[in-house]
């Protein structure tokens, strides 16, 4: 069973429908026991970092997430909140990845948010090599710089972490649930992890 962590994230419904399309059993839950005993956990996210961290802390979900032992996939804001700090409203985050989330600073009138389809350069084998140079859908104004945990790089204004991995934690900045067949392939790659 896959647990999708239920909280005030905008894309929970989209993630659920994507899992339905893959014929995967899942439940959307904020029940700590159910999350702990799930085979895999998906931590979605669309929204603002500070409000969301407060929501998670009030329910002690921040501690719960950090201590999970099964494969966990953070999506978009979910990935950013797995870092230690976000510049978005000066927010201390969960701290699985010891990295700081920064705001895009346009150099030549690039638009922010970074919105639309951009290509992936995988650097870690948890992502199938055939997603190399394929396009996935991004919507974000903050980013994680390239670091030791980076497992795919995308360029917008500068290179940044499109995906990361540390131990049992996997994370993607883009929206696999909205990235057509390439996104489906990436969700499947995560579901194959143990």
């Amino acid at each position: 069973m896959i647990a999708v962590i239920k909280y005030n994230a905008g894309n929970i419904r989209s993630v659920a429908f994507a899992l339905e399309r893959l014929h995967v059993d899942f439940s959307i839950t904020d029940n700590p026991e159910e999350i702990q005993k799930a085979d895999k956990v998906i931590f979605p996210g669309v929204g603002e970092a500070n409000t969301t961290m407060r929501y998670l802390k009030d329910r002690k979900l921040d501690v719960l997430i950090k201590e999970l032992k099964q494969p966990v996939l953070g999506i978009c804001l979910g990935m950013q909140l797995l870092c230690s700090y976000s510049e978005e409203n000066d927010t201390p985050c969960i701290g699985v990845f010891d990295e700081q989330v920064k705001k895009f600073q346009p150099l030549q009138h690039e638009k922010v948010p970074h919105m639309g389809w951009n290509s992936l350069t995988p650097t870690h084998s948890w992502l199938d090599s055939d997603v190399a140079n394929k396009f996935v859908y991004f919507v974000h104004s903050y980013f994680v710089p390239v670091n030791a945990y980076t497992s795919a790089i995308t360029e917008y204004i500068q290179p940044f972490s499109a995906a990361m991995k540390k131990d049992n934690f996997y994370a993607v900045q883009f929206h696999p649930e909205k990235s057509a067949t390439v996104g489906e392939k990436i969700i499947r790659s995560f579901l194959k992890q143990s």
Partner: protein
Amino acid sequence: MLTKRIIPCLDIKNGRTVKGVNFVNIRDAGDPVELGASYAEQGADELVFLDITATNDNRKTFVELVRDIARHVNIPFTVGGGISSVADVEPLLEAGADKISINSAAVRNPQLIDDLAKAFGSQFVVLAIDARKIANQWTVHTHGGRNPTDKKLFSWAHEGQNRGAGEILFTSMDHDGTKQGFAIDPLVKLNELLDIPVIASGGAGNKEHFIHAFTLGKADAALAASLFHFGELSIPELKSYLNGNGIPIRI
């Protein structure tokens, strides 16, 4: 590299696609879900569904439809038509819409943009602007272009951005339906003025028009309806042409 987006737009009335759709691989040309999924498969980057009836009676039908689209379509989609409050939006978000577009209601009550951006985030709010050039001024119109207002395109787009809109969908009513190309000059000006993405709409008649919208007009995305629906131009053909002409595009 971030690519330019191609966006088919579908008009919905009573849960069905309006205007005939001329596709060989579609069983039911009126079914928005099947049509949307087919566009996604062909390589559309996003979809827009506009509820053109947008009466209270049809609201529930539309929300049900949005849920069905979200269930079957694996690319982002925007829904619009008749949204005038945060309460109108909640069921659409819950049903799985990725973005909503607002038009007349925002002109009537600009605070709506702030409220929606605060409640759901800027990335969720597309400000659609219909404008026509009157006495050398791009004048904003509401109600499907029927009613002129005292708002001007550039100041209104800028105000929309400042209030929290995440994208501007600009339709030139002077170009819409003409198939003579997008309105390039106002696109250039919008791009200079704004820090958020601009979607060009109105006037697409052939492949070159898209190149002009992206290179001359510097649009981030281009939207078209009948050109795609009637099979005059297929999305794979358009995208391969753009790609061959050096436009960054998702193939």
